[in-house]
């Protein structure tokens, strides 16, 4: 294992400390492993709380700031945070206008966030939850509720954050977040494994000439292994899976080409090039696009492509937003 770390069992705590001090102009620490936007609570504004396991930066803490999330809880590497930091973040961001939890669909996150939600509701805080499940290949369409949340959460939170920033009510923020989620699809491919520091060995091994299609952002196996191929043909295949799952024909879309952590930015632009060619040929209009590492799996080499079908509301929210979070900005 080649990592820039100290004792691997200290990694999350040290990462948390480093993250807080590097971003102390935008966020504040509000618990053992929880942060909130520095201005929180903001009078009248719905607070958005995100979180999940560590190892996915910028997700999740990197999106705390103006225009996306108000608070976040840090879990251990690839492990949902316990309820406690979620509760701390909730209390810190609650201005009385209510709090929305939004996170990827993983059993651990659901259990822990639900615990926090129950607790905070007992405290009299209005809390609603929108669980995200954009990963097309993680379950068939008729079992979409089992699908994981991966790269697409970046697009969904972009819309959700803009809505909350516009001082919409909790119900309105929840509604647009659910709508954005329902219109977002992602497929990923991985070229290498990643290594959980305290584990010390790669989670899985992949032969030098193979790649995995549909794998998760924790190194969970995908739906199949295929021979390494030219990227254009891989992108053709995964975009086809997305287009087969939701009707994008003639629509406006937001596109995310997301790096999983270990692939250089140069390759992400190669991916975007192909995605934009396919969408053009399919009569789909790119209205918003972003290329970058947004939801990662430590140092895994690979990429995911997300498409969000836009209606006027979502379009205007994502286009006109100003975002100033710890790790993502949009002017």
């Amino acid at each position, binding site marked *: 294992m080649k990592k820039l770390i100290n004792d691997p*069992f200290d990694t999350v705590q040290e990462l948390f400390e480093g993250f807080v001090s590097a971003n102390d102009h935008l966020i504040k620490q509000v618990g053992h492993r929880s942060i909130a936007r520095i201005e929180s609570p903001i009078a009248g504004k719905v607070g958005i709380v995100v979180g999940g*396991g560590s190892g996915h930066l910028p997700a999740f803490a990197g999106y705390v700031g103006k225009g996306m999330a108000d608070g976040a809880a840090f879990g*251990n590497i690839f492990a949902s945070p316990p309820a406690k930091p979620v509760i701390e973040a909730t209390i810190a961001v609650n201005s009385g206008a209510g709090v929305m939890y939004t996170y990827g669909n993983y059993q651990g996150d659901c259990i*822990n966030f639900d615990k926090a939600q129950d607790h905070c509701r007992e405290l009299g805080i209005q809390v609603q939850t929108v669980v995200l499940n954009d990963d097309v290949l993680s379950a068939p369409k008729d079992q979409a509720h089992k699908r994981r949340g991966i790269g697409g959460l970046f697009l969904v939170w972009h819309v959700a954050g803009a809505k909350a920033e516009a001082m919409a009510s909790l119900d309105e923020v929840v509604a647009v977040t659910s709508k954005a989620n329902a219109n977002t699809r992602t497929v990923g491919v991985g070229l290498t494994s990643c290594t*959980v520091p305290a*584990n010390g060995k790669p*989670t899985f091994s992949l032969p030098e000439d193979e790649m995995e299609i549909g794998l998760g952002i924790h*190194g969970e196996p995908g739906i199949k292994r295929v021979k390494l191929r030219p990227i254009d043909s891989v992108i053709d295949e995964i975009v086809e899976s997305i287009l087969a799952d939701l009707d994008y024909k003639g629509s406006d879309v937001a596109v995310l080409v997301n790096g999983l952590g270990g692939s250089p930015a140069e390759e992400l632009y190669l991916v975007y090039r192909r995605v934009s060619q396919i969408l053009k040929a399919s009569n789909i209009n790119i209205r918003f696009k972003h290329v970058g590492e947004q939801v990662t799996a430590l140092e895994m080499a690979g990429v995911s492509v997300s498409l969000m079908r836009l209606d006027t509301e979502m379009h205007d929210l994502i286009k006109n937003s100003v975002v100033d979070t710890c790790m993502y900005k949009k002017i």
Partner: protein
Amino acid sequence: MSDVTGAKVAKSLLLVAKRVEENKDYLCELDGEVGDGDHGVSMTIGMRAVTRAVNNLPDSVTPQAAFVAAADAYADEVGATIGPLYEAAFRAAAEAAKGKTNMNAIGDWAAVYEAMAVAIQVLGKAELGDKTLLDAFFPAVEHIKKLATGGGDLVSALESTAKCALDSAISTKDLVPQKGRAARLGDRAKGHQDAGATSLAIVLAGFAEAIKAG
């Protein structure tokens, strides 16, 4: 055999923690085949927290209080799926041990184990056969409950219960997972031994070993 006091229960948790950490890499490996490769890490983080908490307990601790300390440790430090499951399990164990000054009887342990398994099922909603730790735990619970009615030796009861859990854990190889990360793999997960079932067997073996050591 001397009394299985609260202090002894606390001490047994320390041995459980040691055995779990010794198996960290093995558990990660099992989890990595179908999950995200962190199960040994999550269990170790939890058990280290248990160790810290237990080391702060007074000698006069009750069995109940020892289990509460373990529950609190898991609640604060672990997260993941396994964190709330073990938190709930230890909290149920505490409830089952309530009012007891010792856990000398096989029935005391049968009640604790059963409470733990049930709490995990209530929270995690897994059925038998879903390829989770319950597929090791429930057979073990059935086993010890039967022994409790017979009234034999506590140590050998705990030992054979742990053995039953381990055998059942090994048998999870044949199951197709329905819960958690591995559920998405369907048949691709067949042939792999469930990580959580394996660690549960290690936990039960740790209790047996500690009580035997006295």
